[in-house]
């Protein structure tokens, strides 16, 4: 169908409006984070890295960042290993009730975070896991694992299981076959899952609020606190850095996906 010039113009306008609606708040934050004064105005009057400097000099922000990266890093490792193994078992194993297991494993994706958080808070306080970074990692793992499972399961769909039989017939133990045949073929799914797990943990706020101890501020928690207590533009610098971080993840996971697609076609 060929649309007329007016229809085309309207479509373009609508597209621009929607994109502006999606991007404008973030663009504003990024621009304001470079504001030289505490009085925020758009467009900013001048350009300065003052608030980034504040961020890097503030022990509270630095601690929050350190905590965030420790928790996200540990969560990613645990969730990636567990999620990959779960996906492998679900795809390659021969047993009943696979659909039920997938549903249970991915339930945290659709359960409201506040429900998960409240439930975990009670459960973890019974065994004394609240208020520790280990408990926080465990809690984040629960919500991060589904992303790994789903992502790895998706790549396993295209994995030819005859390759495992071939590897075994050629003398490879199951562990060797996993490392030398399975992982090289499904690593895009594992990597994408790991990125999702990292991003989920880095961004997680509700569960952290329930589980973390008094001193355990993560970046989202610190941002929330600083909005409540004193509206300093430092939060804008933090937000911008988190945003760039997510943008980086998005680009990396897209690159992995494209690479995997190209290889699949070759």
């Amino acid at each position, binding site marked *: 169908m060929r649309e007329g010039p007016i229809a085309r113009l309207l479509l373009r306008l609508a597209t621009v409006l929607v994109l502006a609606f999606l991007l404008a708040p973030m663009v504003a934050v990024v621009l304001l984070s470079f504001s030289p004064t505490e009085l925020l105005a758009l467009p900013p009057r001048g350009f300065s890295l003052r608030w980034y400097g504040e961020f890097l000099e503030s022990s509270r922000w630095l601690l929050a960042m350190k905590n965030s990266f420790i928790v996200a890093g540990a969560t990613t490792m645990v969730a990636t290993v567990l999620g990959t193994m779960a996906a492998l078992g679900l795809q390659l194993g021969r047993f009943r009730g696979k659909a039920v297991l997938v549903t249970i494993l991915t339930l945290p994706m659709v359960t409201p975070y506040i429900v998960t958080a409240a439930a975990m808070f009670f459960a973890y306080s019974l065994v004394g896991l609240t208020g520790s970074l280990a408990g926080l990692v465990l809690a984040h793992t629960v919500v991060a694992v589904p992303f790994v499972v789903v992502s790895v399961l998706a790549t396993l769909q295209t994995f030819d299981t005859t390759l495992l*039989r071939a590897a075994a017939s050629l003398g*490879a*133990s199951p562990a060797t076959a996993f490392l030398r045949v399975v992982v090289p073929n499904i690593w895009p799914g594992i990597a994408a899952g790991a990125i999702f797990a990292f991003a989920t943990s880095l961004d997680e706020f509700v569960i952290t609020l329930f589980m973390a101890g008094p001193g355990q501020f993560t970046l989202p928690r610190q941002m929330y606190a600083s909005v409540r207590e004193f509206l300093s533009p430092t939060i804008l610098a933090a937000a911008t850095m988190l945003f760039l971080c997510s943008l980086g993840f998005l680009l990396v996971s897209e690159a992995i996906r494209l690479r995997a697609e190209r290889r699949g076609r*070759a």
Partner: protein
Amino acid sequence: MSEPIVRFRAVSKSYDGRAQVVAGLDLDIARGEFLTLLGPSGSGKTTTLMMLAGFEDPSEGSIELEGRRIDTVPPHKRGIGVVFQNYALFPHMTVAQNLAFPLSVRGTSRAEIAARTAKALEMVRLSGFGDRRPQQLSGGQQQRVALARALIFSPTLVLMDEPLGALDKQLREELQLEIRRIHATLGVTIVYVTHDQSEALTMSDRIAVFEGGRIQQLGTADAIYERPANAFVAGFIGENNRMEAVVADSTTLRLADGTMLPTAPHGFSTGEHVLACIRPEKVRLAEAGHPATVTEVVYLGDHCRLRLSFAGLPDFFAKRASEDGMAVPRQGEAVFLGIPDTAVMVFRASSP
């Protein structure tokens, strides 16, 4: 026969505890032989192969390799080479890396891996292809790599699961010869699964015909073709005209319309209902004999296929080799058929 390399003893396999995919299988495989498991799909031939490879566990019975029970040994410790229908080459490795895989998991030195890889590529005539990826090769080339990979660690036994099933006719014939050549050169024992009877007839030292989870007949190609053990084997291998008949005496059958058909002594008792099978190529056109009418002539180059109306049967087939100066019968022509008594195979009517 010396000590068999593989021995199946009363092996059964069932997935649900009721239907038996393989039922009470006893089979000895001789060292160095080319044994083909032939049968229609669902006959148990592939399951038998998979149990030998270790990818399926027998529900009952035992399997021995070189005198050792292996049915509890995991596949990667059996040291049996396997070639799969879909090649199963590792897509993330080059051809050379694929070939090196079984050697490197065994801790072979780099120098030896390089030497043996080169030799293996030469054996399947793919020297110079070592750096390619499997996806860059044709189907026939990929299967030759898979063949080399299954042989490079010098297994004494190699299993092939319909390895040529995905290839077109010409390539298939080319690779059949290649596999035969490799078998003859290396002296390795090969167990080959196929549902293609001509492939089985061309390649095998012995053929095991499978149906319903059991071996119906085990023998050389010509024994199975010329002296089928039962009506199933006769019908599955080659073409056949099947006719119901009643035993008139020890060397004669009476067909439904009263035609008397002489046979070699068959050992059935008078009055018994039997099944008579005659291969189309054994039927001759003669000066005198059984009267028949030609209803269709199909010219196939090296031979003609005649559909005949004979003894009240509308679809009786005969094959006639094309020879110089011989007139091809025309449709509607009345002819006489010569059926030698040795061409008539007699089977119990109740057998499948």
